[in-house]
């Protein structure tokens, strides 16, 4: 297995600087970082993390006096019982969500590759406390309503485990077979993950083609307005993407190039990603700030070929808001 770097190289900028001018005065900015490396002690938590990595077991701790089982075993003495000692116990790998988990669509710079993802708290059978855990679905993008309070979930183990909390995540048991639910130490490679399949569009009729032509014209107008709006240009400063957009009435290209946004009727040979929406007005509404493109993806009205490109989608949504603000001003 190739070992990863503790800081992925793509996050590290060049040693560089720039000058910004505000009100005719020059201000200096320097690329910089605070970095510290660790050999981090897992101390009394070591049995928990080693059990995840080596044995695919989940451990907790039980108070000798009150019997409360804490998972993960985040303390060795129970403060509710005047620091009575606890003992390690193994808990089951199926449980229920303590409450409805949030879903992160706009992630931090370290987690953009994971988005969208859920993070909730599961109370595993045999435990009294809830453990933070990532929540995924095997059916594509995690959307609100799929996992709620009391939804039964199964702990899954990563194929490559390193003795950290990221060695595990959970999926709803409703997406697994009985055999999979029963199996202890079920690994991610043992279940079917639905691959991203590009949706097929229906045949275009004359009405659809006309709607496409009209919408494309409006989209071009909006792109031109965005290019004249400083705030919108700033939203895509330093960003470059080419997007093939497929709709029932026809295809077109959206190109973002460091502050410039172009929409044109051409076929991109190697786009960065593909968007598919039956009705091009879905995208028009997004760029006209009549409903977010992000939300259209979540509700299934618009499909993107790479989840990592939510980053680009956020920028498009941001530009729509910037243009709307500029128009109001």
């Amino acid at each position, binding site marked *: 297995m190739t070992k990863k770097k503790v800081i992925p190289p793509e*996050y*590290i*900028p060049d040693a560089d600087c720039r000058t*910004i001018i*505000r009100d005719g005065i020059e*201000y200096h*900015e320097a*690329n910089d970082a*605070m970095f510290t490396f660790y050999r981090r002690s*897992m101390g009394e*938590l070591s049995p928990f993390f080693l059990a995840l990595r080596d044995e695919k077991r989940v451990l907790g701790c039980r108070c000798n006096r009150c019997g*409360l089982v*804490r998972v*993960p075993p*985040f303390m060795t003495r129970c403060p509710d019982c005047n620091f009575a000692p606890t003992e390690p116990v193994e808990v089951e790998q199926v449980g229920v969500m*303590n*409450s*409805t*988990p*949030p*879903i*992160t*669509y*706009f*992630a*931090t*710079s*370290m*987690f*953009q590759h*994971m988005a969208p993802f859920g*993070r*909730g*708290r599961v*109370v595993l059978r045999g*435990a*009294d*406390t*809830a453990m*933070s*855990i*990532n929540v995924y679905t095997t059916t594509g993008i995690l959307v*609100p309503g799929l996992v709620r309070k009391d939804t039964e979930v199964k702990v899954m183990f990563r194929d490559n485990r390193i003795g*950290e*909390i990221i060695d595990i*995540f959970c999926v709803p048991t409703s997406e697994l077979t009985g055999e999979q639910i029963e199996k202890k130490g079920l690994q991610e490679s043992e279940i079917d993950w639905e691959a991203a399949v590009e949706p097929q569009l229906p045949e275009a009729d004359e009405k659809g083609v006309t709607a496409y032509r009209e919408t494309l014209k409006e989209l071009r107008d909006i792109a031109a307005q965005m290019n004249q709006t400083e705030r919108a240009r700033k939203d895509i*400063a*330093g*960003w470059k993407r080419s997007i093939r957009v497929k709709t029932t009435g026809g295809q077109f290209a959206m190109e973002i190039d460091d502050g410039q946004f172009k929409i044109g009727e051409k076929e991109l040979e190697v786009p960065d990603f593909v968007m598919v929406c039956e009705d091009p007005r879905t995208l028009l509404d997004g760029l006209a*700030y*009549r*409903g*977010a493109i*992000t*939300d259209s993806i979540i509700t299934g009205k618009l499909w993107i070929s790479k989840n990592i490109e939510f980053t680009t989608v*956020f*920028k498009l*949504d941001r530009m729509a*808001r910037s243009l*709307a603000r500029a128009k109001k001003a």
Partner: protein
Amino acid sequence: MARKVGIVGAGVTPFKGRWVEKTYDELAQMATMSAMQDAGLEPKDVDAAFYGIYNDIFQRTCIPEHPLQGIIGLQNKFGIRISNGGATGAYTTSAAHAYVAGERFKTVLVLGVEKATDCFDFTSMSATPEVIKTIGWSGDSFFEQKIGWTASDSYAEVVLAYMDEHPGDLKPEVTAQISALLSQHVKTNPYAQRQHDQVTPEEVMNSRLVVYPFKELEICVYTEGAAALILAEEETAKTISKNTGQPVVWITGVGESNEHSFAGRNQKVMSRIMSDYLSSHRAYEMAGIEDPVQSIDIVELHDAFVHQLEISMVEFGFVPPGNADALVEDGIMTPGGKLLVNPCGGLIYCGHAVGASNIMSAWSARNELIKRKLRTALVHGTGSTIAQYGVCLVLEHD
């Protein structure tokens, strides 16, 4: 018997998304100067500094208050830094209050400052993902940081747990109306980051989901700025007041609470913000307030998220659990209603310069009490994972 403590001066810098023109040191000095001038004092008149600074990584130094002591002219005097997540500013004011009430000092400076958006993500070429990442280092380092913990998703956990218990409450059209209302309040705050960003409920509803169930226009914005207060004991406060001609606004109640950071049996009750309930009721008790609905005129609430604003108002006792939407539906916080909530625009529109935010809220509450000739305000701070920390202060104007 503890001494009476009052606010005799206050000042803020403009809150901005980015201060290219100023360092964090300069912002701190600007707010200090403004507060001291407001109180008619000079550095020699102030006995001690209480620094509210949340995040070392934002400031890119691990003792971020150390250069400030001389920059604000308080060298060789007492200086202490308080850091309590989002509740840093309120906790700092609480600490300063305790030192003055306990007769350690007569006149002190409370100074909050934060410079967040120097953080920059070179992969997306934008600041916000790196700011969120930096806040993400505040989560539990063994069990939560590595699975994508953020302030937003941890508060969303609490909000969704509340919605699990009260499924008809926190309706999207109500949260949208509250955001739109705050955007109207901010129009009169010239120091606000979004003074001219008025939005309609429809625009809020149309804004994108960031972390379910939060939409972009229902979340506070990251801000750079500083805010400062001058607190003084009773006799000194009265003398200062005589000199400046401004009334003293007394801090008559203070309450704090830090909950458990884990959930489940005997741990945090996820559907409640007990830190808000306990801190507010402790502050009421100290101030002698029996019925907050009758006694309080202004609430300057730490609105990290609109949904959390509603739950906090439940915990403060203004609306019953399960009917937080009455804040709008019964007109409690709409124009002409019983309560004026976040006249500064709140952290969603004025901005969230973390360590400075609650101090800015106190600055606003004091100004509004004096300007509107009202009597009592509640100032609030919330912070840490799953709304773990809560602080409330009761301000009263004679």
